[in-house]
């Protein structure tokens, strides 16, 4: 007597997680002993898996990463975390004048860009060359740290019909990359880019979603929000 094989639809249902008891257990048991059905199932499962990157990307609330790391019990090595702190201290001390100069330069560049139009490169530090001229829709907002120190500016602008966020900042910690997040009015956040912030300042122009935005955050490697710019409510 030959064994009854499940239909392809039943195997697809299983791969999609759409098979209920008692069919589910019977199908799983069948697959353990039937190479042909197992192949059909594997092909369906692989096709499903490789379609998943098409799902929309959505940032969770700020601090989610820290919550996860705490839940995993993965904490910073105290010696490792002391090193950046010492660098930051030195940075703010002897080199403070240089850093402030860099921030000032970045802020002036942003001011020029917003006020008169200028040139910019997409998603990389401003280099003075580029095909497009952002046109500001709002004044720049100061990027400030938790200590109320201004480290740059951010603004919503347009390049043609493309809405963009322009960020000018300086004084980042050497070796640290900063994730630029646009916080939207509905509470969600969108990652616009990730880059180091050079001591002497730089500028980035990044495509942005059309949804109303409330702030721009630069988040350090360790998940802490290094600086925030609160945008105009019309953004």
């Amino acid at each position: 007597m030959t064994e009854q094989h499940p239909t392809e639809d039943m195997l697809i249902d299983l791969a999609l997680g759409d098979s209920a008891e008692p069919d589910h257990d019977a199908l799983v048991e069948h697959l353990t002993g039937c190479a042909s059905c197992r192949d059909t199932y594997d092909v369906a499962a692989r096709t499903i898996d490789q379609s998943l990157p098409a799902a929309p990307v959505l940032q969770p609330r700020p601090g989610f990463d820290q919550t996860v790391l705490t839940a995993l019990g993965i904490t910073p090595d105290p010696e490792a975390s002391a090193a950046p702190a010492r660098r930051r201290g030195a940075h703010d001390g002897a080199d403070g004048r240089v850093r402030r100069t860099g921030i000032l330069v970045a802020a002036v560049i942003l001011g020029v860009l917003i006020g008169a139009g200028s040139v910019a490169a997409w998603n990389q530090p401003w280099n003075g060359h580029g095909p497009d001229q952002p046109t500001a829709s709002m004044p720049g907002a100061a990027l400030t740290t938790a200590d109320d120190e201004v480290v740059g500016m951010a603004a919503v602008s347009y390049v043609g019909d493309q809405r963009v966020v322009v960020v000018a900042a300086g004084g980042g910690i050497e070796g640290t990359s900063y994730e630029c997040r646009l916080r939207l009015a509905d509470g969600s956040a969108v990652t616009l880019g990730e880059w180091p912030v050079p001591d002497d300042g730089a500028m980035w122009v990044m495509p942005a979603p059309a949804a109303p935005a409330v702030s721009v955050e630069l988040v350090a490697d360790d998940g802490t929000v290094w600086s925030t710019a609160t945008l105009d409510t019309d953004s």
Partner: protein
Amino acid sequence: MFTHADRASDAALVEGLALGDHPAAAAFVRRFQGAVFGLAVSITRDPNLAEDVSQEVFLRAWRAARTYDPRRASALTWLLTITRNAAIDAVRVRRNTPTDDEALERLIHDSLRAPDPAMSTLHRVEAERAIERLRALSPDQARAVVLAVLGGCTAAQVSEYENIPLGTAKTRIRAGLQRLRGLMSSEEHHD
């Protein structure tokens, strides 16, 4: 095209996660949290539940990190597979998913448009390929596949939402997946 270095970079973070290395684990979570949370929201249609699911995903990934094989799947696909399973588990426990027509229409629309330009190169390439394959389907098949695969809808829910017989919903899903498989085979030949 993505480079092997990109994939190796993701795999190195998975290794770091397995070892409990804080900088690697933090970078891993930050690199993938948007993709994980996005898919979790697509399936649960509930941001609070999606956040719980996303935490569970990273916990499962941490436990399974030592068994991750980059030759079998990219870190993104591996993690999203965990996400889909965890989200469907969570919805099943809750026994009801909000039938938010607007959310499902938005999911279909967003899943068939160009990926976020701010994504990393490797992840954007993976997303672009997945989206291009979905776009190659007939509109009816694409809708059914997006609802079933990315929305976590059962065939019965696809049938109800699309106002078509259950058999038609299953046919569209099956034919759509077969077409996707054919497109994936073509890509593998070209690679």
